[in-house]
């Protein structure tokens, strides 16, 4: 219960930040050259002034900025994200359609990056400064320095074009009409390359943090105590070092949540996945500012929720947090 109230308090503390984001973005977008109506008109191929005037009225774009901001925030509270000019549907609906793909991509990337990063970091720390460590650390650094979109393209080239093992893009095999398990496997097949691409950079980060964390914890006093009790090296690592070293890693998940969402924009574009990231890109290009705002709002919410879960997890792992003194 303590854990929950603690995390809830942190959540409440994030609300002002959210407000700042939304207000800031809304005001920022007022500076954008051209608005929704301009985009619509451009799509329609031009229109006469009176019709443009009417459209503006329809979209309530003729009111003053502060009124519109208030109106916007009020509607947000009701989760009404407005209408998408391009898709002709409520923004909320469009976002909801695109959400699963992004969540799936992020979830699996995170899982792989964390698990592999943890494992490799432990190995590197155990064999510090010897060849496994040098190899792993160097690979990590190379992965970190690789632009994700480039890796994706090269991955497509090697595995899809050259070797033909994996699909070059898309979410599922079009027109195959697969159901149930077959469909799940098909989607999984399509997600292999994108997931690996997105996971790559974060794997490098987790690896480095885990290695550093393990090395730092190894030098703490209680590890010496554990050795003085006669525990074997393996036991010292598993029962004393590992759990303590994981703490910074858990924090990192929360900190990297936003970056991962950003990364998904690029990965989804490279692999033509129908996710939030690509939606954001499209709405920038097509000047659909409502949708862009909507995506940003949902992204921020997503990051806040992830941080909430991370806080709960951290409090579970570290009893000093709930001591709350």
């Amino acid at each position: 219960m303590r854990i929950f109230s603690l995390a809830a308090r942190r959540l409440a503390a994030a609300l002002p930040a959210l407000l700042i984001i939304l207000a800031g973005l809304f005001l920022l977008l007022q500076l954008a050259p051209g608005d929704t109506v301009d985009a619509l008109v451009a799509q329609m191929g031009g229109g006469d002034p009176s019709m443009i005037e009417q459209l503006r009225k329809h979209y309530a774009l003729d009111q003053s900025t502060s009124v519109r901001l208030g109106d916007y925030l009020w509607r947000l509270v009701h989760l009404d994200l407005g209408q998408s000019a391009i898709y002709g549907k409520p923004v909320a609906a469009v976002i909801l359609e695109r959400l699963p793909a992004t969540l799936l991509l992020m979830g699996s990337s995170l899982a792989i990056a964390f698990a592999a990063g943890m494992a490799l970091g432990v190995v590197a720390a155990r064999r510090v400064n010897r060849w496994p460590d040098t190899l792993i650390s160097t690979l990590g650094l190379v992965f970190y320095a690789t632009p994700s979109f480039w890796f994706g393209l090269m991955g497509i080239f090697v595995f899809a074009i050259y070797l033909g093992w994996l699909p070059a893009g898309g979410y599922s095999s079009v027109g195959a009409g697969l159901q149930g398990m077959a469909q799940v496997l098909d989607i999984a097949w399509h997600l292999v390359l994108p997931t690996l691409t997105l996971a790559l950079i974060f794997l490098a980060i987790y690896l480095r943090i885990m290695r550093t964390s393990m090395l730092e914890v190894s030098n703490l006093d209680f590890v010496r105590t554990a050795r003085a009790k006669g525990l074997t090296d393996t036991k010292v690592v598993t029962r004393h070092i590992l759990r303590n070293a994981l703490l910074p890693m858990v924090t990192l998940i929360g900190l990297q949540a936003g970056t991962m969402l950003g990364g998904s924009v690029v990965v989804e574009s490279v692999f033509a996945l129908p996710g939030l990231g690509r939606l954001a890109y499209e709405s920038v290009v097509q000047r659909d500012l409502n949708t862009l705002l909507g995506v940003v709002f949902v992204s921020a919410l997503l990051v806040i929720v992830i941080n909430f879960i991370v806080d709960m997890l951290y409090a579970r792992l570290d009893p000093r947090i709930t001591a709350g003194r």
Partner: protein
Amino acid sequence: MSSAQNVSTAHATATKAVSTRDSILSLRGLTVELPPDADRRHALQNVSLDLEAGRILCVVGESGSGKSMTAGAILGLLPEHVNATAGEVFFQGRNLLALPDDELRSVRGAGIGMIFQEPMTALNPLRTIGDQIGEMFTTHTKLSKKEIEQRVLALLADVHLPSPEQAIRAYPHELSGGQRQRAMIAMALALEPAVLIADEPTTALDVTTQAQILHLIRDLQRRKGTAVLFITHDFGVVAEIADRVAVMQHGVLVEQGEVDAVLNHPVHPYTRALIAAVPPLLPPPARAVSQDIILDLQHVSKTYRSGGWRRRRVTHAVSDVSLSLPVGGTLGIVGESGSGKSTLARCIVRLLKIDQGQIDFQGVDLAKLGKRAQRTHTRDVQMVFQDPYGSLNPRKRVGELVAQGPIVHGVPREQAMARARELFELVGLDPQSLHRYPHEFSGGQRQRVGLARALALGPKILVADEPVSALDVSVQAQVLDLLARLRVQLGLSLLFITHDLRVAAQICDRIAVMKDGRVVETGTVAEVFGAPRHPYTQALLAAVPGRGWQPPAADRAAA
């Protein structure tokens, strides 16, 4: 006997196996080398000592003496790249240095137990006490969970931890420092080892807690017949519990013998110098102090409020304190951690704002001054800090640091640097070294720089917050002497904050004892030390280790 003959006699005594009783742990010619880039070659050189069954051997030395390395070397717990290169460690007939890893592991904990200095960091913060003590049993025995729990409860009761059933499920941060150390002792003695190695286990504890832990160790040791290798830098502790003593300097064992012999008739010059530097608990004859008051604190209070929005947690750091400092006199403020003495010091130099009360300095209430007046008055009250490593900006040259104060107050640079040179001479530092950086000086020298800095503005009152607590005992004596000399030479009134009663006895004229933010007793040094009235003061004095021992005064003048 000449000094040189003393050395060789002591050395001969030290290297021979003198004891007639059975040795349960013997070090023979132990040599430990440091990695090539360290400041010296050897951590330990040719160290031979014997620990007899059922007795307490104290290994005493200053920092860098290698005493902690000795403990680490025995169990093979040396830091990376530090190795034992010669010698043997005999335990129950086997040479521990030659044992294969798994056999050495079975000795650790079961044959030889170990406790460390910092109980907070020596226990894993993420696991319960019961879990960690139980680990001793799971590693070395095949007892069932239930049996282990019974044993752990019994152990916790043995070390007098209140409510063992709660303690067993508690995490380290939920216990106090003293309680954590008790838990560590319980853990080390869980398997009834023949030897207990204690590496400065009470250094991080308060005086009263230290007394309890020392008592506990001695009590357990007698009951279970454990031999104890107790490492410390404090001769008072040695006087309190040791049966035998070994003195180390720079990795070499310089003297070894029964406690009576070494403490009261030390042979080696280094031992004699060390013992001479220990301040006796008996205060020197009182000197004449003026009746005029230069600083008068009236009902000073400082309260901290914390705990989120409603600020529920209230801590009375300083509560209704009234003290007076006579002109040219030294007022000592003694107390343990949490007594509020450091907070009070910072209130006096206005690093902290007080919530109530007055600080009267020659008719001016310092607490009520505006910003500008405050800056003028900083010249009158200055502070010397505790940490020689943290109190000097590592990126500034020492000359710069000392001259900074006057420069900020409008003194031209040339003049300020000249003053800095004078001050360096005054505090016993080479005036040519103004251009050096702090890291080029030793701890004691850095404290002198801090002193010079404080004196640069020509203050009338000097507040010294534990100025010698972080120094080795021989250096401590030098800095105290310096302070004593300067206060007379410059006519300073000194406010001396410390937790060390021996130090307070030597340098203070009057003493105020603080506990939980309040002053519980004041008086002249002779009154407070000779006939304490408040129960807390009595408890504090009773807790000073080795209070019954008077360091031989003969060599004090020579030292």
